[in-house]
């Protein structure tokens, strides 16, 4: 990939695209991968709250897991999850398991 030349770069070293760090997929850093066991998840929001990467996605809707209805679903964005394991460590029901990356 060729990088932009002097006159193709905004002056002053400014970055004009907010949140452009999303182009940097940090998921590749991971050696352990968190897996959410949806049936054990009590929807407490703690993993979402503590994730340093903001990779725990909260979706509002109607979700049925093993016959139980839930209003929320939690999923991990593996594009960015660095595998620190805070979510698993803080989970009150041990619904998140850290497994080695394949």
């Amino acid at each position, binding site marked *: 990939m060729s990088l932009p030349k002097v006159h193709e*770069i905004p002056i002053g*070293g400014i*970055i004009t*695209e*907010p*949140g*452009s*760090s*999303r*182009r*940097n*997929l*940090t998921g590749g*850093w*991971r050696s352990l991968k968190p897996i959410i066991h949806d049936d054990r998840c009590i929807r*407490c*929001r*703690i993993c979402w*709250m*503590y*994730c*340093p*990467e*903001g*990779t725990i996605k*909260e979706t509002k809707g109607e979700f049925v897991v093993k016959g139980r209805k839930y209003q929320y679903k939690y999923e991990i*964005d593996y*594009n*960015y999850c*660095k*595998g*620190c*394991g*805070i979510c*698993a*460590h*803080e989970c009150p029901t041990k619904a998140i398991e*850290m497994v080695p990356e394949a």
Partner: protein
Amino acid sequence: MKVVYKAIWDLPVEELFASGHRACAGCGPAIAMRWITKTAGPNTVVVNATGCMEVTTTQYPETAWMVPYLHVAFENAAAAASGVDSAIRVTSKKGLWRSGKTNVIVIAGDGGTYDIGLQSLSGMLERGHHVLYILYDNEAYMNTGIQRSGGTPRYAWTTTTPVGRAIRGKIQAKKDIMGIVMAHRVPYAATASISNIIDMSNKIKTALEYTEEGPTFLHIMAPCPPGWRFPEERTVEAARLAVETGYFPLYEYDHGKIRLNPPTSNMVADPKRRKPLREFLKFQGRFAHLTDAEIGELEKEVVANLEYLAKLASL
């Protein structure tokens, strides 16, 4: 404290600190950044001192920030923020600032606050700028590879306070930065921890509201797994134990009145509710060399500090 968020479900959803930043896995300060930006909202200018949160979030041409962001240098974030505040105020009057009420928040680490940035912080506080200064404290110069700062606790190992045969870790105690800030008689200053997000977010909201009157300050405990030498999944636990052992008391200075917050207030009322300091120290490599006698000394300091704060709170 104004309680804006009563429970976890009241917390704001919108993310203004994007994924893809390059902070270490399990970074305590990164958790703080998420909640500072979420709580403050988009009408906020962040002025960041040089440090971990600056280099890991703004590697050109990418930025994790979704609010206007300025980094000038290490020691002058408070001065640069003074300029931003002043500019917004005067250009608003002249009709040149069209973004309405805008928060100005400094984000600086312990090196940028306790040490090299102390003068500009003091100047900003004394001049009464409408700036919220947030110190994220990971207790050493982590960005340059774990060197001692004025915020490093006594006996801690760092690369510039190694555990040698003659001297074992840092000799001096951690500086009372809250005491220094309170001496400026600001409207509001508080401590917070990344383990207690609801408390922290309410304090951010409270501070921003008081910033209309003048400068406010938040001291946020934000552990660093590589710097403190503990496994990265234990960052939040480390912060929680810092609070629960009394090592890092949670309290507010609100218009001259000090108020202890739970759980610190509980352990002052009933010392049995304070966990032994050893629980905070034992899993951190930076304290691995401590003897029982040294732990005992640190514990005495913790108790003395709680008693000191309790006395201040009773005034």
